[in-house]
């Protein structure tokens, strides 16, 4: 948390807190009204990223850090997230019962 962030009140953090709770509430409402829905995964992922972004930027104080640190964390994390998701594709191969790529 930056020094600048401390000079203000807690108002900003309470708004972020309420937003994070609201994100979870929206997730539950969507998942509860449409259990096992076809497009549930991307919706849940988008909402989870939104909540996580709020947490990282404000509760972890990344928004108040130097731009170079923000870039370092963002590039590193997004690269890992993007590349690790490459593994998903293989689950479809397993599901279809195809032992090896042809």
């Amino acid at each position: 948390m930056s020094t600048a962030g401390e000079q203000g009140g807690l108002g900003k953090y309470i708004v972020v807190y309420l937003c994070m709770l609201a994100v979870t509430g929206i997730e539950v409402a969507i998942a509860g009204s449409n259990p096992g829905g076809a497009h549930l995964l991307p919706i849940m992922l988008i909402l989870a990223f939104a909540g996580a972004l709020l947490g990282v930027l404000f509760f972890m104080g990344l928004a108040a850090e130097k731009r170079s640190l923000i870039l370092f964390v963002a590039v590193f994390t997004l690269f890992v997230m993007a590349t690790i998701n490459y593994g998903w594709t293989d689950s479809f191969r397993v599901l279809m019962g195809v032992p090896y790529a042809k």
Partner: protein
Amino acid sequence: MSHPDVALGGHHAPAMEPSPFAIPAIKLAMWLFIISDIMTFAACLVAYGFLRNATPNWPRPYHSSTIISVLVMTVILVTSSLIMLMAVRAARAGDRANAFRWTMVTLALGILFAILHVREWFGMIGQGVTLSTNPWGTGLFGGAYFSVTGMELLHVIAALIALLIIGLGYKSGRYGAAHVENCNLFWQFINIVWMFVVPLVYLMDIAS
């Protein structure tokens, strides 16, 4: 300047490399740890998703009681995150009493979260879910469920120990505000991971 000169300072001022990203080394170390932990959790969640996607008839065992419990756990964890921020603010202001108080409130909420988490586990075990078996016949479900939620619980327990040590250490003057801030980073990270565990593990598999 030779290496010994750098090490000993030579006849000049000590050679000091500026802090990367203009943050203290202790904070940079925590960010690097968190980034590496992101890889661990990402691997765990992707493995969970892989198994879920590749397994026909993946069970959807979570009823409203579980979802309500998970919601309560989320409220507790997010509230504890806000309170931990108050501890950091107090620590940076040099208010040791308040920083300690808020750290202990965070600790108490974390313990409550862990208790509810374990209760959730016992509920699943009570339904017959183990690492290798479950009543729905999809053998991989238990292992996947316990590994993802267990990883989260393990981090919560580690953070609780850290909160206790740092809280007491800060109160006694052994640790400074930077340590409280670092502890806050780790606690917030756990909260953020939970924001992914809830939808991907629980909400995706609500019983219809």
